[in-house]
């Protein structure tokens, strides 16, 4: 069975009146389990569209997306919702936690969406929080957490359903350098130890040290860039 994420010749076009905008232009990409990939690029380059399509939030106009071998092109809205729940862990720019749930409940709500909460789920949630250094904050509400802590809860939430694919959309956008390193370091650590396929869309080239591969997006096209932070910086100046 195929694992991880495959994008094969994926295009996305929008029709705005008589204008036809191409947001994604024949993008192909494969991310294997245990692989952490970054996508960089200027704003408006199609990064968000790319992430939305990879995360089953948006259907591609052409091409095929497969998450753990499941084709998204034919999926109904309900099936997409199920795939988002079971197969994808999503981290957003701001942590977007539910304001009236405490930290443990933020994780368990994912289980409730799919049915019931079992005892193992609670154990797993607490284990995740320990790993992310949130053990002491498990009863806190979002308003009592710092930005870094909230983003770490979002990481835990993304891993809660044991998805095959982790997507992070500018996870460091609202964090200072120290916290940003901490958060991306934790994502990398969890991705490796749990063998997930992961994509991070970012502006922040300091974070590229944590990833295995870097892709660059420009005008809807995806180009490979060098793997290390140093060479990525060099590549971007070419």
């Amino acid at each position, binding site marked *: 069975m195929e694992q991880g994420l495959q994008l094969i010749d994926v295009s996305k076009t929008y029709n705005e009146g008589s204008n036809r905008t191409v947001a994604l232009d024949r993008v192909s990409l494969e991310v294997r389990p245990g692989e952490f990939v970054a996508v960089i690029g200027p704003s408006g380059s199609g990064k968000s569209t790319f992430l939305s399509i990879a995360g089953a939030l948006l259907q591609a106009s052409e091409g095929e997306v497969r998450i753990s071998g499941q084709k998204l092109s034919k999926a109904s809205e309900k099936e997409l*919702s199920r795939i988002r*729940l079971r197969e994808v862990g999503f981290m957003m720019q701001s942590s977007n936690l539910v304001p009236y749930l405490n930290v443990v409940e933020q994780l368990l709500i994912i289980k409730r969406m799919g049915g019931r909460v079992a005892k193992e789920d609670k154990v797993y949630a607490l284990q995740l929080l320990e790993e992310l250094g949130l053990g002491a904050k498990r009863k806190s509400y979002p308003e009592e957490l710092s930005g870094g802590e909230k983003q770490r809860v979002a990481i835990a939430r993304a891993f809660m359903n044991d998805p095959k694919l982790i997507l992070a959309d500018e996870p460091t956008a609202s964090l200072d350098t120290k916290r940003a390193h901490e958060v991306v370091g934790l994502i990398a650590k969890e991705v490796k130890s749990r063998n997930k396929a992961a994509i991070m869309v970012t502006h922040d080239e300091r974070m590229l040290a944590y990833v295995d591969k870097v892709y660059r997006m420009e005008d809807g096209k995806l180009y490979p860039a060098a793997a290390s932070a140093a060479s990525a910086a060099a590549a971007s100046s070419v």
Partner: protein
Amino acid sequence: MYLAIKEILRNRSRFLMIGIIFVLIAWLVFILSGLGNGLQTLAASTLKNMRADYVVFEQGSKSSMSKSLLSADAMKAVSEQEGVRAVSPLGNSMGTALQGDGSSSEDKLDIAIMGIEAGSFLEPSVIEGKGLSKDLLTGAIVNKSMKEEGFKLGDTFRLDGTTESLTIVGFVENETYNHVASVFVPIEEWRRIAFAAPGADKGLHDPVNALMIQGKGASVKAIDAKLGNAETVTRAAAVQGMPGFKEESASITMMQAFLLVISAFMLGVFFYVFTMQKSHQFGVMKAIGSGNAFLGRAVVSQVLVISVVSILIGAGLTYLVATVLPKAMPFLLDTKLVIIYSFVLLAIALLSSLVSVRRITKIDPLHALGRVE
């Protein structure tokens, strides 16, 4: 239910406010139902309590006792009809009871004089004293509310404007007519009171206002055809035909209907605004995999929790108020009605929450990303 309760507990003041408003609405609905029921009872309890199924009126009387006059001679013909188990005559006139010499206003009391055959199925059972008797035509059984006006068992009172006097031989309860206490007298005595003036009986032999029929299977058409100048209606229609009864209940019903419509709008709008405010949050939940059903259930169960709690508190307050209302106020809670209105309120609240559910299904999870290209 889980999300709903978590949110309510975390945002107590916000939900408390809507709860209070809903409690007030439920309270008002219940109080109006109590008032409506009380007024109706005061207006017609004697007629409502009678164990009769049909009422025969004079033709053209619009089911109103006061417009109808027929002869008790028709009783024999009616009783021969199929399905009729028993027939009994009924007469009614309004009067004023005079206590003492009647010189001060406290000594006068409006009453409804009901003429019935002693011992017939129309005679209510007494809670004190004894029933009517043919041997004592001036003996009356009266509603116990007259006790509060100073009337006692064995008292004799005069009827204003007549030469007749009545003696209280027994008390009955819950017997009022046209908003005043009912006084039951033998039909012969009633004729002496009602037709004291010559010609008042229009020359009818043994005049009465109506004939009450027992027998659910009686044929209205057959009775009307047999009597020629009569119109027979159900007892419920006879109650509706009482002067002012329909108008009175229509006013109360309209108030209640308005209240129900207002509460539907208010709850609907409140939760809709709430849902709009949280649309980003719902979008995030959808983005991380929540289905519409999960979020829809959360909203509906939130409305359910608030409605049930508010309705229960509203009902509790209503029963509390009922104990402190002055006796002169016609307030009578019918538990059956309270339960019916509770379910109507609940149904309206849940229906109004569907507008919010519809809104949720339209939220695009893509907006959760916060930057749609």
